[in-house]
């Protein structure tokens, strides 16, 4: 196979199984097949396609559900039935569907890569911007009128180059940009523990490791539902089939809180369940991120969640093992670290081709075996991500959700996003956050003492602190994803909730100095307001804080 190229896509046997060339030795090519290979034998034909593994980008992506190599699963279901049989070849974008295209440029205008030729209102939420693909430029010699076109119709000509609404892009290569910018805005998730203590910036990276049952998946779902981004790409990499079905059935029902439109209209799902071929699993995160980059290039804020990147790493390990490569740590290939880093580096707030600003945030879940964070995938991920949400099994047992441990988690974006939060709440936000954090840290120390000598050994002030810490944990950090009101908290309400707890603490300290007993302080009526703050409206909460402050 001397005509073959590295990473070229091939079709194996007359069943046309999709494969990729991963090694060339002399006249021999090593092919990684993306489908089940039983019943295939020597002597069968292999067809070259002369292109690397690519995705199709254009109108029709939103609301789709793809497998790891961008085959539309809903279309496959309609044509091939309940099971995914082998050799099904189906284009990622519909060839027959027509889109209303509105041109923005005129004949004779100069067009550079990234310039918007025209737009398509793809869903009621998102305007799809048709851009000049990278490496195309010149004068527009022809452009179509406003009207309905398929993704295959030529809508514009630059010199002799034909431009369609559909672009293709190799998944392992990041899309070009002008430059990267420093992230400054927070990605608001409506999850109190994240927004208050461990925020991630738009264009940032976060890592959520946790043992099974600690609530990784719920956190990822909540992010996909509530984040203040324009587009969500949800990659289910080696996940459970039933869980993917849950997403598929739930997302179309869920409404975007801002526009009241179904969330599916801004979502792309990549579903590669654990029993689908391992090579497609390896490709799925790249398929996802390439689609995410494409929307970023339009100037949108994009969130990519990958659940779970451990399955991706294991897929690499499996493939590497079959190739008999020299293994690194725990059997993972030696390039695990560089591949992980390169993947997360595709995130960022960027100045795109065409001059727009867009951002791509990556939240990767990691499933460390036995919950042991010292294993290679977690460690390699932690080195390149800037936020760490540490899911804690013990908290999950107590049904404290989200089970993000406040003592071990961290975010390196706190100071970067403070300005934004201050502007939207109040100047004293950073101090409040630090105060609350220090109370929680102090609690951990005091708990040690309590464990040894009992709670009576503590001073009244320390007992008040313990009580406040409990309040922060139970009335602020604990959040019920399945409760209609509690599932999302606005930045303003979050600020008020924490404010109320701290105000009560100050009140308590003052009353203690006035020789009031701790029990009596805890009986004060404000305490009840704090407990109920989760389901209170913002005005009511504000009144309550005022009342506490007046008493102080």
């Amino acid at each position, binding site marked *: 196979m001397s005509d073959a190229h590295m990473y070229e896509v091939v079709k194996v046997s007359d069943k046309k199984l999709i494969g990729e060339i991963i090694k060339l030795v002399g006249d021999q090519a090593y092919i990684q097949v993306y489908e089940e290979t039983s019943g295939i034998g020597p002597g069968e034909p292999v067809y070259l396609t002369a292109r690397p593994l690519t995705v199709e980008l254009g109108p029709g992506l939103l609301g789709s559900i793809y497998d790891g190599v961008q085959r539309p699963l809903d279309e496959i279901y309609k044509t091939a039935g*309940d099971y995914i049989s082998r050799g099904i070849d189906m284009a990622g974008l519909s060839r027959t569907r027509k889109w209303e295209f509105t041109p923005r440029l005129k004949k004779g205008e100069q067009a550079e890569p990234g310039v918007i030729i025209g737009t398509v209102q793809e869903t009621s939420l998102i305007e799809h911007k048709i851009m000049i693909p990278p490496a195309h430029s010149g004068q527009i010699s022809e452009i179509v009128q406003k009207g309905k076109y398929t993704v295959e119709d030529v809508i514009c000509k630059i010199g002799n180059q034909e431009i369609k609404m559909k672009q293709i892009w190799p998944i392992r290569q990041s899309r070009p940009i002008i430059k990267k910018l420093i992230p400054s805005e927070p990605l608001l998730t409506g999850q109190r523990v994240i927004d208050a203590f461990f925020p991630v910036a738009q264009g940032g990276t976060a890592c959520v490791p946790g043992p099974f049952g600690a609530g990784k998946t719920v956190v990822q779902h909540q992010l996909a539902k509530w984040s203040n981004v324009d587009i969500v790409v949800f990659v289910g990499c080696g996940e*459970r*089939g*039933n869980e993917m079905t849950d997403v598929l059935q739930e997302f179309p029902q869920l409404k975007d809180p801002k526009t009241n439109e179904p969330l599916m209209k801004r979502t792309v799902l990549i579903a590669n369940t654990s*029993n*689908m071929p391992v090579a497609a699993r390896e490709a799925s995160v790249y398929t996802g991120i390439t689609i995410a980059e494409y929307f970023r290039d339009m100037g949108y804020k994009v969130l990519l969640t990958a659940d779970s990147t451990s399955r991706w790493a294991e897929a690499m390990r499996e493939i590497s093992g079959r190739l008999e490569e020299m293994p690194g740590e725990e*059997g993972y290939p030696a390039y695990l670290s560089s591949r992980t880093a390169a993947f997360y580096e595709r995130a960022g707030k960027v100045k795109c081709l065409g001059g727009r600003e867009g951002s791509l945030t990556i939240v990767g879940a990691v499933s460390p075996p*036995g919950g042991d964070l010292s294993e290679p995938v977690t460690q390699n991920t932690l080195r390149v991500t800037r936020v760490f949400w540490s899911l804690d099994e013990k908290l999950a047992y107590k049904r404290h959700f989200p089970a993000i441990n406040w003592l071990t988690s961290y975010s390196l974006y706190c100071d970067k996003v403070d300005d934004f939060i201050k502007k939207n709440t109040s100047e004293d936000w950073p101090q409040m956050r630090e105060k609350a954090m220090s109370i929680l840290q102090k609690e951990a120390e005091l708990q040690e003492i309590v464990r040894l000598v009992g709670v009576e050994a503590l001073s009244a002030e320390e007992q008040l602190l313990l009580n406040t810490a409990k309040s922060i944990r139970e009335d602020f950090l604990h959040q019920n994803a399945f409760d209609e009101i509690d599932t999302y908290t606005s930045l303003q309400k979050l600020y008020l909730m924490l404010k109320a707890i701290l105000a009560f603490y100050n009140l308590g300290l003052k009353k203690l100095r006035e020789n009031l007993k701790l029990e009596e302080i805890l009986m004060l009526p404000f305490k009840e307001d704090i407990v109920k703050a989760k389901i209170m409206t913002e005005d009511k909460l504000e009144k309550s804080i005022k009342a506490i402050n007046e008493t102080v």
Partner: protein
Amino acid sequence: MKLYKTIKELSGPLLIVEIPIDANIKYEELVEIELADKAIKRGRVLEVSEKTAIVQMFEHTTGFNIKSSKVKFLGRTMHLAVSKDMLGRVFDGACRPKDSLPQIIAEKELDINGSPINPCARDYPNDFIQTGISAIDGLNTLVRGQKLPIFSGAGLPHSAIAAQIARQANVKGQDFAVVFGAMGITFEEAEFFQQEFQKTGALERAVLFLNLADDPVVERITLPRMALTCAEYLAFEQDIHVLVILTDMTNYCEALREISAGRKEIPGRRGYPGYLYTDLSTIYERAGRIKGKKGSITQIPILTMPEDDKTHPIPDLTGYITEGQIMLSRDLHNQGIYPSIDVLPSLSRLKDKGIGLGKTREDHASVLNQLFAAYAQGKEARELSVVLGESALSEIDKKYLEFANKFEDRFVRQKKDENRTIENTLNLGWDLLSILPRAELKRVKEEHIKKYLKNYD
């Protein structure tokens, strides 16, 4: 069909056969070996190149001879002959009848490897299954189409619990069947299940696949796949709700490791092959419901954790694929509590959509959360009292300790033939919650307290 007499090498269960270039042999094709004494042994193609094929035998290679054995490639991959007549029958790991009745007449032949179900074709599991066991129904609810393993240890009563579930989960009015796959278990264990099924008349509605501890190891790999192929046929073509019990998954993984080592593959964690996760997922993921189909497959795989260690690769990888786990506790077992289910680390991920008004009862979700939280706190108080003595506990902690003790004694503990309705289970939960002061009941709604708490004042 050509016979080859070109065996080049024999090592363990592996055979290397020299083949001509035009042999047209396929990956995973079935193979028959005829020995000198005309005995037929079976295997499958593991690897094939232009000159050689590596064949893995399903049976012992004792008595094989390089010169006189003949190899026949059958030109097809492994298929299972299925029919509704399989109900009430017992088969071995190669699907040969084990009950001295004749072979079934096939209605269909199905590839035992199956194909992944398209996530778009799946229907979300949300029908409550009442197992009659409080620790499961009340706190870790099983739903139809779920895969919920039992994580056990050597000597713990997982078999009794599985048999009790199989017996009691029999929903009246619905077509129901049990497919039982046993891999490498002892004769006595297999006999226990057979007798249990027979005693309760469940045997006519069960298909048993048995591979005992002294049966060929390779058959342990194909057995669960056969069991699931049979289950898929019954569920999705015959509209039956199927409960699949697979025991013991640890033996399955051991077999996989044995074969992987024989193939000289690069080992992963603890010598298990690197593809263990993918391999397990092709078994576990064959549970579920399909849109427009009446039947369903619910899986209860049982595995014994070596040294009760749940970070061992087998339970660990299983937990990442299955939708929760029922964890058995040696402590509770030693205290004489049956079923010794440790509810805190147990989890049913799909319970939220299977409980509540119209499924179980309106208060289920909040009672469940309150019981979990209270039991966790009670156990913490117990640890504290071990260190400091019970007198050092605060009043409230003493209440929690009392709650934890009674919870284990009355809620978790039940008889082997006790079939509690979900109402009984929830009422029992409320009963126990009344031990605690009202102010502590933060996770239940006020209206539910009024309605269900007995001594409400």
